[in-house]
C-alpha cells in the first residue's frame, strides 16, 4: 500500500475530456529570450496567505528573486521574512535587503517600484489602490480575492484591468477553482453539452467560521481593526465576499454571465461578540441572471451547524455537482452518474496559478483575470447589499454606487471608517433600514 496507490482519479476520463493541464516545470528549458531576464518579485501583504503566494511564485520560475516586502505591521513582515529566508536563503531566490522591507500604509509603493511582478495579498479593502499603482507602473500582478470591498474600488479595478490589457501586463486573481482540475474538467463537459443548458444552481460556503484576533490594550482603534480585519467591512467586505466569492465565482464562470439582480436575507445570531465587529454570520441570496437562471447562494459561519463548501447546477439534460474535496460529478435527469472527475494526487491549484502567471510572462501570452475577478467581487458585494438592506439590488444600480468604505491614502492618523459605540459594540446593518447604494 503506497501513498500514490489510489489517486482517486480517473485519468483516462480526464484525458478524454480534452483537458490540457499545464504544469510545466519540465518545459522550462524551452523558454525563449524572455527567460534571460531575472524577474524581481515584491510581496505586499505578508500574512500567511501572502507568504504562501510568495512561496508559490518562487517555485514557479527558476530565474526569479524576491526583492521587496511590505506590510502595515513590522511583526507580520518580520515573521514572513524569517520563514521565507529560512527556506530560500541558499537558492539565490531571496534577495530582500534590510532597506527593502517596508512597514506602514504606503510601503506598497516602494516595494512595487522595485519589482517586475507583484503579489497583492493585504486585506481586500486596499487591493484597488495597490492594483492601480502596480498597473500604472507597468508591473505584472498576482492578487488575492476579493479585489475590493466597495463599488468605487470595483470601478478602479475594472479601469486598471483595461489598462493592464493595453499595456500587455499579466494578471492572475486568486480564485483558484478556475485553475483546479475537477472544475476545469466539469466545465469542459458542460460546454460539450453533457447536461444541456444550465438553468439554475446552488452554491455554498457553510462552515464554523474563521479566526478572531482579540483587542489588546496597547492597540489604537485603527490598529485593532487592521489586525482583526475579518470583522470590518471596509477591510474585509463580510464573509460573503471574503470566502463565499469562490463559489459565487464558480456560478458566474459556469453560467458564463453575471447576474442582473440579487435579493436575500441575512443576519448575525451566533457570532455576536465585540470582537466580531460588524459583519453578519449568515447570508442567503438569490442571484438572477440575464438568461433567467437563478443561483441560490448560502454562506454561514456558525459552529456546530451543517458544513458544506460546494456548488451544484441544474441543466436541461442533467445536473452537475462540484465540491471542495476536489471532485466533480455529472448526472442525467434520472440521477444516474454520467461523469466524474477528481484531481490528480498532488494537484495544487494555488501553485498552478503561479505556474500559469510566470509561463504567460515568459512566453508573452495573454492572461488577465482582473475583469472577472472584479465582476465576481461585485456579485458578492451585491449579495451583501441585498442582505444588509433587504432590497432587490440591480447590477446596474450597484455599479453606480459611490459609497466608499475605504479612505484614500490612509496613515496611522486616519480616523477608522467605523467606530465602536459607547458599549464597545459596532453598528450592525439592519434590513429595512440600512442604506447600501
Amino acid at each position, binding site marked *: *500500500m503506497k501513498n500514490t496507490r489510489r489517486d482517486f482519479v480517473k485519468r483516462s476520463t480526464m484525458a478524454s475530456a480534452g483537458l490540457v493541464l499545464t504544469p510545466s516545470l519540465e518545459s522550462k528549458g524551452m523558454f525563449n529570450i524572455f527567460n534571460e531576464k531575472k524577474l524581481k518579485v515584491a510581496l505586499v501583504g505578508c500574512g500567511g496567505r501572502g507568504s504562501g503566494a510568495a512561496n508559490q511564485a518562487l517555485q514557479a520560475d527558476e530565474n526569479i528573486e524576491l526583492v521587496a516586502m511590505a506590510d502595515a505591521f513590522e511583526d507580520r513582515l518580520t515573521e514572513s521574512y524569517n520563514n521565507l529566508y529560512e527556506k530560500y536563503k541558499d537558492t539565490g531566490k531571496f534577495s530582500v535587503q534590510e532597506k527593502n522591507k517596508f512597514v506602514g500604509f504606503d510601503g506598497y509603493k516602494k516595494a512595487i517600484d522595485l519589482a517586475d511582478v507583484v503579489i497583492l495579498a493585504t486585506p481586500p479593502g486596499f487591493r484597488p489602490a495597490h492594483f492601480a499603482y502596480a498597473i500604472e507602473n507597468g508591473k505584472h500582478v498576482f492578487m488575492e480575492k476579493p479585489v475590493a470591498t466597495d463599488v468605487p474600488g470595483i470601478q478602479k479595478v475594472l479601469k486598471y484591468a483595461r489598462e493592464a490589457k493595453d499595456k500587455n501586463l499579466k494578471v492572475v486573481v486568486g480564485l483558484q477553482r478556475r485553475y483546479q482540475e475537477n472544475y476545469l474538467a466539469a466545465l469542459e463537459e458542460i460546454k460539450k453539452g453533457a447536461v444541456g443548458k444550465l438553468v439554475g444552481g446552488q452554491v455554498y460556503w457553510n462552515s464554523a467560521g474563521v479566526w478572531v484576533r482579540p483587542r489588546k490594550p496597547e492597540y489604537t482603534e485603527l490598529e485593532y481593526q487592521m489586525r482583526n480585519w475579518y470583522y470590518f467591512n471596509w477591510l474585509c467586505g463580510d464573509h460573503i465576499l471574503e470566502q463565499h466569492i469562490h463559489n459565487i465565482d464558480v456560478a458566474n464562470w459556469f453560467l458564463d454571465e453575471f447576474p442582473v439582480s440579487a435579493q436575500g436575507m441575512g443576519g448575525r445570531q451566533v457570532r455576536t461578540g465585540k470582537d466580531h465587529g460588524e459583519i453578519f454570520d449568515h447570508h442567503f441570496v438569490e442571484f438572477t441572471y440575464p438568461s433567467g437562471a437563478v443561483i441560490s447562494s448560502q454562506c454561514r459561519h456558525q459552529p456546530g451547524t451543517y458544513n458544506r463548501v460546494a456548488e451544484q447546477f441544474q441543466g436541461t439534460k442533467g445536473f452537475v455537482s462540484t465540491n471542495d474535496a476536489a471532485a466533480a460529478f455529472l448526472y442525467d435527469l434520472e440521477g444516474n452518474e454520467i461523469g466524474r472527475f477528481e484531481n490528480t494526487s498532488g494537484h495544487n491549484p494555488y501553485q498552478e496559478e503561479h505556474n500559469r502567471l510566470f509561463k504567460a510572462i515568459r512566453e508573452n501570452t495573454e492572461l488577465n483575470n482582473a475583469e472577472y475577478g472584479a465582476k465576481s467581487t461585485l456579485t458578492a458585494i451585491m449579495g451583501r447589499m441585498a442582505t444588509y438592506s433587504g432590497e432587490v439590488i440591480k447590477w446596474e444600480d450597484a455599479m453606480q454606487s459611490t459609497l466608499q468604505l475605504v479612505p484614500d491614502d490612509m496613515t496611522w492618523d486616519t480616523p477608522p471608517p467605523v467606530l465602536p459605540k459607547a458599549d464597545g459594540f459596532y453598528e450592525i446593518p439592519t434590513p429595512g433600514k440600512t442604506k447600501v447604494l
Partner: protein
Amino acid sequence: MKITTLMMVMILWVSLDQEPKAYTQRLPGSELEIEMVAIPSGSFQMGSKNPEDKDAYPQRKVSVDGFWMSSKEVTWELYREFLKRELDINAIKHENIQIDAVTGATIPYVDMGLGMGSEGSLPVANVTVLGASQFCKWLTALTGVYYRLPTEAEWEYAARAGSAGPYFFEDDGNLEEYAWFDENSGESYHEVGQKKPNPWGLYDMYGNVAEWTLDQYVEDAYQKEQVFHPITKPYPTVVRGGSYKDTAKELGSTVRMGSDLVWKVRDPQFPQSKWWNTDAAFVGFRIVRPVETPEIKEDNTFWIAID
C-alpha cells in the same frame, strides 16, 4: 487536589489489578463521552505471513502491555471541543500539566470535512498527527487521565483481537458488515459505530477513516528487531486500518501506510498549517490509555510536538 488524589488512587488500583475493565470517559462540563474498551496484555504475531506485503513482512512475535482503546474513532463533536477550548475551565488542575499550556489547533479557514460533513458523530479527519496527539494531551489535562495515540503494535494487536489472518472476522464474516470502504461508502466517511465491532468491541478498525499511530513509517521495519519507532520527523508517519476510499485489499489488520506531504498540498499558506491537512480527509484517529501510566508531565514523549 482531592479529585487528583482520587484519580491517582484509581489509577494505582487499576495498575495493581492488571486486568483493565471497560469504562466511560466523560468530558467535564459537557454531555460528551468516550467509551474505552479494555485490551488485555498479551503477545501476538505482528505483521503479514504473505511476502508480497513487503512492508509488513515477516511476522514477528510482539508483546503488548494492557491498555484501553476508544471503541470508536474520535468524532468531530469531540474534536470541536478541543478547538473551542471552552471546557478548559472544568479541567482537572494538574501540577505537571496546565491545560493553558496545551497548544490549541487553529480554526481552519476551509471546511476540513471536504463536503462529507464535519460535525456530530462523523469521524474527525484531515488532522495532522500533531493535531491528533495534542488532542490527547488536552484530554489528559482536561480529565487528569493519561491518553495518547496508539503505537502501531498496539493498534494491530487491538485490531486482530486474537485473530491470525488479514481480517479479524477470519472466515465467518464479510468486510461489508464491519467496514466502510470503497464498495459501500459512497465515497464518504460515515458516523462512527454504525458497523459491527471487532471481537473486542472496537468499531471501524477497518475503513471509515484510517488512523494515526505513534510510529514513524519505516518500510523495512519488520525485518529488524526494533518494534516501536518513535516519530522524529513529520513524514512519513504510520496510519492504519485503511479508509472509506480504499479497496478491500487495502483494509485489514496488517496493512500499513505512511503519511505524505502531498496530504496538505492545497494549504496555500506559508508556513503550512501544523494542525491541518487539506487532502487527507481519509485520516483520523482513536485514542488509548495504557494501564501502566507514565507520570503525567508536560514533555511526555508520547505527545509528539513536531508538525
